[in-house]
């Protein structure tokens, strides 16, 4: 005859000393965390994106604002079109910025932890919401209404909450509050890193046109043999944000095909922005395009081939990196701007059998800027060393002082490098 027994006791007695071995990968994962000490995720993905968007837009706005300032002082007839285009983009950016600001505001309010309650408490019309996990969040947005509809007990009175903060000694309050200081300390151990960067660079224009001559606006153009090499310095401000700078030597080459170059001693004003005098440029695929060149071509020295513009800059970038995901493999968004100092500026005519120096571009500014956007992927080799690859888009501002038509250059590079954290 079987004895009747309380079901609770059956389970208590049987499962009291139960031990079962987990798979090996559990320890492997813990060990990886302990040796790498990756940054912990704490903010939902959409909030990170909205924060990043605001930063990018701010940087971009800064660049555009600076550009506008420059174009006003250099006001030339040819720049008017460009300037008005920028005003449109500036207005668009403002709208986005406003939205971004709201998002940021929300994210700040929503992620307030228990320790920071007093700060948020000072914000207007806050609501104290108790989540099912017994944590309290302080919010002033729609979340409060969601909680209200679920169960009215989740919206709590402010004074009750503050009282419970003082007396709360239960299990969860002992374990739950994230020890922010400790986490930060770990993440902040090695704040600096330095590394090399190498990037093949693709140089092009957003609009058609030629910075060298109006006559060449419709010629086909391509980027060639462009390379950026340099050093990168990175400083980790906190768990999410890094600021990075450095210096890069950027070699850009831009080729215009089907060009006719005609030497003349004629007093007719040159139709181009090259420093070598007495050269008339025209599109060789379009014979009658320039009355001046056709009228003087007979019996004069005439070259036909590719026009190769070679530019070299020293680039000084200042960028913010926002970490989206951080583990052995990390992903971040990068935004910022660069200052370029012109180091080499030359234009060659390349024909089938010779290369002819045509001097340099007279309208290239000696200092110009770019707005930078990109994604950064990194892979940690060990505690100190990591590899990174960053596809970056760099939108050039005030590259040319005048007469560059609609030419709006940008370049795209995939920057890769080995970095050392210290």
């Amino acid at each position, binding site marked *: 005859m*079987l*004895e*009747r*027994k*309380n*079901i*609770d006791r*059956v*389970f*208590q007695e*049987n*499962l009291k000393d*139960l*031990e*079962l*071995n*987990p*798979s090996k*990968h*559990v*320890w492997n*994962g*813990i*060990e990886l*965390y*302990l*040796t790498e000490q990756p940054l912990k995720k704490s903010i939902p993905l959409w909030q990170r994106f909205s924060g990043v968007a605001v930063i990018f837009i701010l940087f971009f706005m800064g660049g555009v604002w600076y550009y506008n300032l420059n174009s006003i002082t250099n006001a030339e007839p040819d720049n008017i079109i460009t300037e008005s285009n920028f005003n449109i983009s500036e207005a668009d950016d403002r709208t986005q910025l406003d939205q971004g600001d709201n998002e940021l505001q929300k994210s700040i309010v929503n992620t307030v932890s228990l320790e920071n309650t007093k700060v948020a408490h000072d914000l207007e019309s806050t609501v104290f919401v*108790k*989540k*099912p*996990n*017994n944590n309290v969040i302080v919010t002033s947005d729609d979340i409060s209404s969601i909680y209200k509809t*679920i*169960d009215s007990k*989740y919206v709590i009175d402010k004074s009750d909450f503050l009282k419970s903060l003082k007396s709360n000694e*239960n*299990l*969860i309050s*002992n*374990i*739950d509050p994230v*020890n922010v200081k*400790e*986490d930060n300390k770990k993440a902040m151990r090695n704040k600096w890193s330095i590394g090399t960067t190498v990037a093949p660079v693709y140089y092009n224009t957003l609009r058609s046109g030629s910075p060298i001559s109006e006559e060449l606006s419709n010629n086909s153009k391509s980027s060639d043999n462009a390379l950026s090499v340099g050093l990168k310095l990175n400083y980790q401000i906190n768990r999410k944000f890094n600021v990075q700078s450095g210096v890069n030597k950027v070699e850009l080459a831009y080729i215009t095909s089907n060009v006719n170059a005609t030497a003349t001693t004629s007093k007719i004003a040159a139709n181009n922005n090259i420093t070598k005098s007495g050269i008339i440029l025209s599109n060789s695929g379009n014979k009658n395009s320039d009355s001046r060149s056709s009228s003087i071509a007979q019996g004069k020295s005439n070259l036909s081939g590719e026009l190769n513009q070679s530019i070299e800059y020293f680039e000084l970038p200042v960028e913010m990196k926002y970490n989206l995901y951080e583990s052995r493999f990390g992903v971040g968004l990068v935004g910022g701007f660069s200052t370029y100092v012109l180091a080499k500026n030359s234009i060659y005519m390349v024909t089938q059998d010779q290369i002819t120096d045509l001097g340099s571009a007279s309208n290239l500014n000696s200092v110009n800027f770019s707005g930078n956007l990109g994604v950064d992927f990194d892979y940690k080799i060990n505690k100190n060393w990591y590899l990174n690859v960053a596809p970056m888009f760099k939108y050039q501002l005030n590259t040319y002082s005048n007469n560059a038509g609609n030419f709006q250059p940008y370049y795209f590079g995939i920057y890769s490098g080995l970095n050392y954290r210290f």
Partner: protein
Amino acid sequence: MSLHQLIINCKKRDIKSQSEIYHLFAGKLFALCLKYSKTKQSAEDNLQDAFITIFDKIDQYKFKGSFEGWMKRIVINTSLQTYREKNVLNLVEENYPDEVEVEIDEDELSLDFLLKIIQQLPERYRMVFNLYVLDGYSHKEISGMLGIAEGTSKSNLSRARLILKDKIELNQQKQIVGPS
């Protein structure tokens, strides 16, 4: 090396001591995770998260009370955290009589079977049953931990007991019918 010394070394982030602590307690704490989880996979995830929390917050352990008890609380809390994340909107209340006492015929019941039927319980019932019956928390504490009313905790427990009883009895009937 004594446990006390191992804990001190863990506070200094000594990986060998951390490994030793893990291997000393992984068996017991994994069993605990299994009781609170639906699947082995999620139990392993919880165990991993819990140990990361244990090593991250080991400075907060001041040698007051048992270390194993301190770790168990973190494991339970991690399991509850996972439950909360998955069940934010699952707040449907059901009414069952409070405090149903359930008795069953004591029989050879395998550990595997008992563990399996706990894991098969609906999430909330499993949490309440574990916290109350196996880990000795009061309904008042459970109501705080799960964000539910005390009455709900009691009725959830009754419901859990009835489900477990049905499964055990069904199993016993099968065993009787089985050989013939």
